[in-house]
């Protein structure tokens, strides 16, 4: 093997997964090269909005003091939007310490990469890895636009599209039902306006998690995050739904922005940046093969996203950390075989990462099957219940309750209601069942 351009580990991709992996390896005194295709780490990265305090601390213990953070989220609002009305449930806790912060990736990922450099990671930016180099089935390095680089282990943190994992057969092509296309806008607003509109003080943040509205009946969700002096609004919809319905994603976002519950939040704001990104949503059953001879897959490239809880960056960071630990172990033992690297999968299985994804393994299947019920009909019924409950029209309340209950049977076949109930129970059982 060529000794020129040879290092211990190459990590492809400078997002939360790749940086966490590289810094873990560098802190153990091993040589690691982190290759990022953008001008700087974070420049190609897009997400909804939040990084999570506890897992981030595992990698960067002092990040709350030194990292570029926007706001500490103290309030979660779950908004169920009808066509023109809405029901909002809110949970607020000003003293939350195991929560999240909103960040801007171009700032935050860049900061993480700088921390990694301080720890000894060799960061190569503006460089695209075009393919993996293999020898007798073992990954031995990477081919970039300019040069070939060699390493004992290559870690793939190249994001949701992971062309590299596909190249070596760790995964097949992603299907439209296994990704959501997300579009978002960052809208500039005065800090005071944000504080007033979201009922928060400086440095406090509020998250809207949005069901229904323009996404009624689709497997899609919306979000609003508050930054220091901007508001992020976006939505993600499963790709097959967009294709089947022939809907343009940014048109849905325009509809969400004009919904009467949402539009006052961003009124008079100025669009600062529009962006789009894919979210891996296949869940547990669609996780690719996570390792092979000389290679491990982490973060979005490994489909490690918990879509129900809006978690991604934390799974990325922890998977990166665990792969980094296994890489260090492999270097000490000089064993880079698939058998040795399978320790990474075992570590993931023993952590919340694969435990959580396993907990929700049936979620997407049921959600796909029942989106017309749970993401359309019953959302509308929640709003119509509160409409009934709050309307004052001199009709006796008991009659109103009976009329409301009757609507279920008038609007929906009994067999459908029965099947909805069964699927609801099936989902609850799949989540709570103890293995």
């Amino acid at each position, binding site marked *: 093997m060529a000794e020129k351009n040879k290092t211990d580990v190459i990590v492809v991709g400078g997002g939360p997964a790749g940086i966490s992996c590289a810094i873990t390896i560098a802190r153990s005194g091993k040589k690691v090269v982190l290759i990022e295709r953008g001008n700087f780490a974070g420049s*190609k990265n897009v997400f909804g909005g939040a990084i999570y305090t506890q897992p981030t601390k595992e990698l960067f213990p002092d990040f709350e003091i030194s990292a570029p953070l926007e706001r500490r989220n103290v309030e979660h609002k779950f908004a169920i939007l009808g066509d023109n009305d809405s029901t909002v449930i809110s949970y607020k806790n000003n003293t939350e310490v195991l929560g999240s912060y909103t960040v801007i990736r171009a700032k935050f990922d860049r900061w993480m990469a700088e921390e990694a450099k301080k720890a000894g990671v060799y960061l190569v930016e503006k460089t695209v890895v*075009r393919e993996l180099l293999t020898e007798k089935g073992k990954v031995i390095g990477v081919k970039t636009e300019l040069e070939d680089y060699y390493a004992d282990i290559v870690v793939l943190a190249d994001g949701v599209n992971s062309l590299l994992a596909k190249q070596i057969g760790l995964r097949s092509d992603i299907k439209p039902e296994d990704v959501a296309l997300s579009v978002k806008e960052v809208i500039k607003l005065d800090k005071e306006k944000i504080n007033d509109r979201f009922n928060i003080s400086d440095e406090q943040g509020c998250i809207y998690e949005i069901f229904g509205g323009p996404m009624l009946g689709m497997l899609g969700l919306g979000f609003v995050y508050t930054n220091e002096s901007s508001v992020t609004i976006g939505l993600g919809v499963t790709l097959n739904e967009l294709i089947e319905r022939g809907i343009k994603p940014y048109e849905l976002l325009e509809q969400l922005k004009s919904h009467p519950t949402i539009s006052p939040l961003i009124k008079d704001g100025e669009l600062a940046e529009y962006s789009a990104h894919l979210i891996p949503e296949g869940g547990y059953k669609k996780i690719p093969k996570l390792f092979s001879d000389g290679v491990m897959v982490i973060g979005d490239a490994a489909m490690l996203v918990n879509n129900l809880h809006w978690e991604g960056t934390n799974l990325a960071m922890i998977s990166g950390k665990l792969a980094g630990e296994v890489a260090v172990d492999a270097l000490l033992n000089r064993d880079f075989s698939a058998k040795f690297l399978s320790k990474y999968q075992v570590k993931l299985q023993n952590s919340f990462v694969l435990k959580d994804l396993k907990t929700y393994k049936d979620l997407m299947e049921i959600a796909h099957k029942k989106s017309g019920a749970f993401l359309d009909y019953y959302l509308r019924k929640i709003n119509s219940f509160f409409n009934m409950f709050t309307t004052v029209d001199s009709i006796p309340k008991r009659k109103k309750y009976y009329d409301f209950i009757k609507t279920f049977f008038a609007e929906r076949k009994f067999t459908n209601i029965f099947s909805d109930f069964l699927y609801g129970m099936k989902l609850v059982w799949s989540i709570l069942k103890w293995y």
Partner: protein
Amino acid sequence: MVLEDKLFTVKYVPDTISHLQPDNEKCKTCENKACTIVCPANVYEWDNVQNKLIVNYENCLECGVCRIACAKHSLKWEYPKGTKGVTFKLG
């Protein structure tokens, strides 16, 4: 707000050649032409006169949705060169 105004906020350094290369013969046989629907930057337009897929690759946000949506596997899709393409300031 129209898409052009949205894309105006995005910073690009376009390459001189496209990183998105469709096989137009396959595209001609494609019924739904999903890329023309789902692309968040409207990179793809079908030209009925030339019977050809127009690719405005300069506007690409590099999300990869077209590659997955393409029913005909017609797209040769790769990332732009390291110094090219989109730079998100507020991702």
